[in-house]
């Protein structure tokens, strides 16, 4: 190794110090400042994007970002102040236009500036947490233009003025509005809200408050609602055209509150045009409008529903207590059906099948139908009328429709067991007199009842139909096995099973000889094939067809009841009979006999008998003759009186009593059933359970239930619990 000096690397400083031109930043800035000026003066075409970008880039690179940024702020602010002056100077309508134009310019300028200063935007600004260029531009616009003293309030009042003009029917420049509003939105939602939306809503509220006040004084309910609806739609349209979508809910709330909610009470109850009037006159359009508008308002629907309910209950109550309609059961029920149809129509057409309204309808009907305890009887009479003659010639589908409607009313009845009792009576009369229009309709109704109330309800009714059919076969069998009787009177027998048919006291009378012999023959025939049964003739329920020849030789065939036949046959052996003789000869009970004689002697067109004296009532001393002068256009004359009628007071009491008696075992059965499964149960729960179980037949009275419980305790089916007074225990 030679003696070499150790080499140490040394870095020497530049011989010449590199000096950054101190004026460099200033010079560069000036270039950029000039560019900004040009941009704002619409002279941007002469600029070189690349050069400007490079300059900005260099400034930031050489740590002059601060200068650049603050220069930007200053320059832009200065320009905006100029712009502000020019906007302020604009007159009248040109104000908004000028504002809009300058805004567009500003945006274009901002974009170019942002592009030029992009490097700063991406490096210096994030590092120093300063506002980015674009946003800065918006903020400066906001602060210097929008919030400038001379512009801020003028802008707001101009916008509101335009809205007001549009509301009063003028056409405004919606495009311009949209742009201005969009500008506010771009400046930030707080600007939009504070500088426009809030005042807008306040002014609108005032406007609508005033308008609604005016309208309510001069328009009736229907017209007012039309106006309200129009205004509502206008506002919605306004929003879509030139406001922020988020404003829709707010402005509609204002309209709803001022025009609808505040006046709801007054509108609904307006005399001669309010809700009640609309309901009465089936004004579906108005009702629909009211429904839709009320839906928008808190508790609006509830109010309408309540008014409808109380009106319906009131109307219904009048219907069922109106003395006129009570005279005619068919009319009574028809009016109920009409009312139901009316409201069904309203709810489906105007209230868009709203379930809550449907429920209100149902509860109202249930309420007033049961106010009248004769409703079950009347409904049965209505059905009876229809099945006798009302449905003659009606198509099968229409029959179904009518019966369905009746079933709907039937379901509202609380005392379905009362209905059953009457229905049975009326059905019996129909079947026995052969007066039913359509067998299919009868059957169809039974099926409907079965669906509504269960099998047990209709099993007896079906039994009645079976008896009729079987009787036909029996009668045929009797006739064919006794061919020798074909010359004499024809006997048609209906054999009724006692349990299925309504209970009647068995009253017999003295039949004419020809008939009694025949009846005996039938009895032996029947008992021959059915040993162990007992037959008893129900002479109060039969009918007869007899041929009669009167004084001038006029021949008629008379259709009469069995009783009437017995009376008339007596006159084959006597010209004149007094009441007592008739009574003795026929052994018909007095009340029936009097009715029977009345129907033959006192009714015009059916007076086959003559009575002395000619009074309307039957006295015990009256005498009777055949009416030789009897005349009728028809050969066949019907004199019978077996039609189902509305019951008289005493009959009604009797039926009601029987129903009450029938209910007792049903209640007891229910109690026993429940206690058997629960073993121990407290008083209130028993009452609730029993009521629920019996609901499909009738409304059980808690006092009655208590009575039954006590009876069961006495008969040792139940006992009270020793420790807890309220509990009952089942005794096996």
């Amino acid at each position, binding site marked *: 190794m030679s003696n070499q000096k150790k080499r140490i690397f040394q870095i020497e400083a530049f011989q010449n110090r590199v000096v950054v031109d101190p004026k460099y930043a200033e010079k560069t800035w000036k270039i950029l400042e000039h560019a900004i000026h040009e941009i704002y003066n619409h002279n941007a075409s002469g600029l070189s994007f690349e050069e400007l970008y490079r300059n900005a880039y260099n400034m930031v690179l050489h740590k002059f970002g601060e200068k650049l940024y603050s220069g930007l702020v200053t320059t832009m602010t200065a320009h905006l102040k100029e712009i502000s002056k020019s906007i302020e100077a604009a007159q009248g309508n040109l104000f908004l236009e000028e504002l809009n134009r300058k805004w567009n310019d500003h945006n274009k300028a901002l974009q170019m500036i942002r592009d030029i200063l992009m490097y700063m935007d991406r490096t210096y600004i994030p590092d120093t947490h300063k506002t980015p260029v674009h946003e800065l531009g918006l903020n400066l616009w906001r602060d210097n233009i929008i919030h400038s003293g001379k512009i801020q309030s003028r802008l707001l009042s101009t916008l509101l003025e335009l809205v007001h003009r549009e509301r009063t029917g003028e056409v405004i420049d919606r495009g311009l509005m949209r742009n201005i509003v969009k500008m506010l939105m771009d400046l930030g939602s707080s600007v939009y809200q504070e500088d426009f939306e809030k005042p807008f809503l306040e002014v609108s509220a005032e406007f609508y408050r005033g308008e609604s006040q005016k309208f309510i004084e001069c328009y009736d309910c229907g017209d007012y609602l039309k106006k309200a609806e129009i205004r509502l739609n206008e506002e919605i349209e306004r929003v879509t055209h030139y406001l922020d979508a988020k404003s829709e809910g707010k402005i509609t709330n204002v309209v709803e509150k001022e025009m609808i909610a505040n006046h709801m009470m007054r509108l609904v109850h307006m005399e001669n045009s309010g809700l009640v009037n609309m309901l009465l006159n089936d004004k579906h359009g108005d009702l629909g409008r009211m429904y839709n508008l009320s839906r928008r308002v808190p508790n609006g629907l509830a109010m309408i529903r309540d008014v409808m309910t109380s009106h319906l209950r009131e109307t219904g109550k009048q219907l069922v207590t109106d003395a006129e309609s009570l005279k005619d059961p068919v009319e009574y029920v028809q009016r109920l059906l009409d009312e139901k149809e009316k409201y069904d129509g309203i709810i489906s057409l105007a209230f868009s099948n709203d379930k809550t309204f449907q429920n209100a309808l149902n509860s109202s009907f249930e309420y007033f139908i049961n106010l009248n305890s004769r409703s079950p009887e009347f409904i049965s009479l209505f059905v009876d009328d229809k099945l006798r003659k009302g449905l003659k010639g009606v198509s099968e589908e229409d029959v179904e429709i009518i019966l369905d409607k009746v079933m709907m009313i039937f379901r509202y009845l609380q005392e379905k067991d009362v209905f059953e009792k009457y229905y049975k009576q009326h059905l019996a009369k129909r079947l026995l007199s052969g007066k039913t229009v359509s067998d299919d309709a009868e059957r169809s109704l039974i099926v409907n009842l079965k669906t509504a109330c269960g099998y047990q309800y209709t099993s007896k009714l079906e039994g009645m139909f079976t008896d009729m059919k079987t009787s036909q076969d029996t009668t045929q069998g009797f006739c064919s096995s006794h061919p020798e009787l074909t010359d004499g009177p024809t006997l048609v027998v209906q054999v009724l099973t006692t349990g299925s048919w309504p209970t009647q006291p068995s009253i017999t009378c003295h039949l004419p000889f020809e008939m009694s012999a025949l009846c005996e023959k039938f009895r032996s025939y029947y008992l021959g094939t059915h040993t162990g049964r007992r037959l008893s003739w129900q002479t109060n329920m039969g009918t007869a067809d007899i041929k009669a020849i009167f004084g001038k030789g006029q021949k008629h065939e008379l259709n009469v009841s069995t009783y009437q036949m017995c009376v008339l046959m007596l006159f084959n052996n006597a010209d004149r009979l007094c009441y007592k003789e008739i009574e003795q000869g026929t052994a018909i009970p007095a009340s029936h006999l009097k009715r029977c004689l009345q129907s033959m002697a006192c009714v015009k067109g059916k007076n086959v008998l003559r009575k002395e004296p000619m009074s309307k009532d039957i006295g015990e001393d009256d005498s009777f003759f055949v009416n030789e002068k009897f005349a009728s256009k028809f050969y066949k004359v019907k004199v019978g009186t077996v039609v189902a009628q509305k019951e008289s007071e005493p009959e009604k009491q009797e039926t009601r009593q029987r129903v009450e008696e029938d209910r007792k075992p049903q209640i007891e059965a229910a109690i026993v059933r429940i206690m058997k499964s629960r073993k121990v149960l*407290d*008083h*209130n729960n028993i009452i609730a359970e029993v009521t629920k179980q019996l609901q499909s037949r009738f409304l059980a009275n808690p006092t009655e239930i*208590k009575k039954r419980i*006590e009876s069961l305790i*006495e008969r040792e089916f139940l006992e*009270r619990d020793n420790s807890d007074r*309220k509990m009952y225990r089942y005794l096996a």
Partner: protein
Amino acid sequence: MPPRASKRKSAPPNSSTVTSSDGRSVSSKAKTKGMEKIDRLFNSYANSSLGVIDPDGIEALCSDLGVDYTDVRILMLAWKLKAGKQGYFTQDEWRTGMKALGVDSLSKLKKALCELEIEVGKPTNYEDFYTYAFRYCLTEEKQKSLDIDSICELLNLVLGAQFRPQVDVLVEYLKVQSDYKVINLDQWINFLRFCQEISFPDLGNYDSALAWPLILDNFVEWMRQKHS
């Protein structure tokens, strides 16, 4: 109490004897001696042909005891004896009763009667006594209810001392109403509960939605109407 014929029989009493080694029971000897006195007392009132104390005998017993034969204490005695038939005491009943009272002479019986009143008054016994009183009056087999007049008398006798105001009004009502011609055991028991639980005469805590018998619901309604 008015004597009535009854076919109800009381259960025979349970007796047990202890025999000592010498073949003769010591306690039974003592028992026999005690029983002798009791039997003697029994026989002094019994109808010799029937072998039971009949209504006449009871009347005699009452006058010897210095109580009216309609006095409630006689009813209490019957309760203690668990007498089955109204107006009659059988020998077994007598024996059981006297032993339970620890009595074998008339004078002792007199004293015991007063104590008996206290014993019956105890809550645990009172309800039992009250129920017994009703059953004691059922003379026919299968009879389940008593007519209104008897009930009123019985109410006075049994509840009169403790619940005078309630009894007075209740008796008045029972005589006036026409819904019920007889009262059954269930209703009877609830009369007592009514007196015990319901504040009177305001009836503030009466709730007709509860399981009170209907007759009491009607009674309360009647009372309220009277006072309004």
